[in-house]
């Protein structure tokens, strides 16, 4: 029983963690992309479509990543090349993504999907309890763990990561030092898009292997909140993501048990929890100021 619940918590948390990690890298470079929800849903529909046509969920994963990354290029072109307002453009990306995915996916509604099967790691998966929970998972879970380790190393141990953080904190100085601000931001935005796409693929291949319109259901926005919660540190995304996953699954189980509370109230819990967590994290202005990338959301036009 406990093991089963833990497994569903992991499944519910993985897309949040993956999408939040991608957005974290983009925000560290100083770009606030509010289009996570849109990129995620595009990833979900691309992954579902590719899986249906090829029969392979692995090709589906690649398609989801590509879909999210390509879609984020649209955001990149507007905000980085044309220096459009990042908040407005992010909203546009979400609105367009929800519409476009609905149209692309219209013929998939009600069609059966193909579930991504778990890969059990030899030996490790035989450990009692932990083996089943941690080492008999699908590829996207393993990728999410690798991403946390990889992004932490990249941001805080690698030269390029240092440059990326420099751009996010002061793009003017970074530009003066000869760092290609716009080019690096493009890459960071695309990485964010790819991660959101991967998270979307998880939704339509693992979490509920089918296509439902608006199936991201606000997870992209929760991922954005997670980045704030994590104070732009990759390892804290893990804690936050699993907290939200646990709340989501907890309320589902409470609904199933029928504890006499309206189901709508329980369904509202993850959203209410997001607000509460944001209050707790943000109320200390000084720590927020220290952690937030200083150039976040500010337009940059290189002087030549």
């Amino acid at each position: 029983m406990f093991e089963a619940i833990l497994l569903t918590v992991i499944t519910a948390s993985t897309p949040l963690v993956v999408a939040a990690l991608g957005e974290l890298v983009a925000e560290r470079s100083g770009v606030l992309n509010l289009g996570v929800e849109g990129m995620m849903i595009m990833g979900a529909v691309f992954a579902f479509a590719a899986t249906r046509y090829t029969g392979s969920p692995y090709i589906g994963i690649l398609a989801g990543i590509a879909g999210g990354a390509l879609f984020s290029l649209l955001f990149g072109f507007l905000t980085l090349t044309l220096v459009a307002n990042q908040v407005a453009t992010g909203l546009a990306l979400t609105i367009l993504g929800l519409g476009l995915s609905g149209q692309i996916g219209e013929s998939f509604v009600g069609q059966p999907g193909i579930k991504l099967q778990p890969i059990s790691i030899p030996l490790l998966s035989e450990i009692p309890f932990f083996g089943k929970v941690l080492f008999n998972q699908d590829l996207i879970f393993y990728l999410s763990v690798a991403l946390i380790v990889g992004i932490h190393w990249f941001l805080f141990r690698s030269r390029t990561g240092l440059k990326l953080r420099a751009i996010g904190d002061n793009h003017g100085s970074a530009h003066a030092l000869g760092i290609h601000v716009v080019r690096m931001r493009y890459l960071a935005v695309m990485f964010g898009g790819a991660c959101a796409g991967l998270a979307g693929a998880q939704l339509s291949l693992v979490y509920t292997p089918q296509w439902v319109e608006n199936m991201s259901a606000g997870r992209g926005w929760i991922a954005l909140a997670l980045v704030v919660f994590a104070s732009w540190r990759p390892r804290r995304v893990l804690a936050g993501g699993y907290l939200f996953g646990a709340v989501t699954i907890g309320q589902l189980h409470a609904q199933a048990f029928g504890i006499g509370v309206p189901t709508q109230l329980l369904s509202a819990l993850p959203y209410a929890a997001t607000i509460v967590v944001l209050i707790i994290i943000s109320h200390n202005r000084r720590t927020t100021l220290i952690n937030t990338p200083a150039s976040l959301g500010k337009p940059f036009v290189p002087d030549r």
Partner: protein
Amino acid sequence: MRIELEKRPRVSGLFSVVSPLLALALTLAFGALMFSLLGKDPMDALYSFFVEPLLEVWSLHELAIKAAPLILIAVGLSVCFRSNNWNIGAEGQFTMGAIAGSILPVMNPEWHSPMILPLMLVMGMIGGALYAGIPALLKTRFNTNEILTSLMLVYIAQLYLDWLTRGPWRDPQGYNFPQTKAFVTEAVLPEILASGRAHWAFIFAILAAIAVWFMMRFMLKGFEVSVLGQSERAGRFAGFSARRMVWFSMLLSGALAGLAGISEVSGSIGHLQPIISPGYGFTAIIVAFLGRLNPLGIIAAGLVLALTYLGGEAAQLSIGISDKVARVFQGLLLFFVLSCDTLIHYRIRLIFAGAKPEARG
């Protein structure tokens, strides 16, 4: 090829006017392309999407019905966005306004009085404003990002409405449909003309747009909005308080969204039900930007976006295109509006590979 931006010495007056039109033209061109990819004749499709709904009296009424909430909400949002407060939860404030405004007709179904309608409208505005007050309070008191909190509150408001209409407020004689009792005639917003369904919400929208336009143009408060939006520091020197502006802009936009909500329920639907809006609160964001955050421009933009809703329905019937195309149009339009706005502040230069950068002294 590379694209370089060069800041214009002053804002281009020409492009301030041309850019929304350019964006519309680009959206139409893209739409034509999309329709031909779907295997439809693009001209036919565009005609039934954007022209046919304008040819009949009843559909002009529908246009006014759909434009009213969009304009009301977008006018409020324009004040928010101009003052750099990113309220994107108007859909939730719309819902809460509808709920608060419906308290009287739902709880007292036997009360017939000419007082009921004005009270409903006021309560709707209060409901929307109070709900927008939550992100305002959180932003001023706890420094919490209003984008995320206002959006999360949308989901909560929708779930609350869902619970009300399926639970305590459900009409017991309603054959198990999740909806409240139909409002009494005194609680229904009257039609403007005898020729069709369009009701007073459209008048409210025009009045609100003119009032906010007047405020932004001729009153100190409007100046305060723009100054604080462009530079909080400059605003402080002038003695303006950014904190009070958060409250002002959020409460104003919440009240207008709430008014839109109760007007929609009272005028168009006639009872409460789980879903009362095809995403007006989000589409209004597009309206606000297409109208260049100017209340008078927003009236025109609201009519354009209302046309995409109608066109979506019309095209579905006449040429069998999914009504989801409307959402795609709306998203594309916002993208083109935002890109064309670049032309107002910058000159765009294309630099081809091989060209040498000119020397600067």
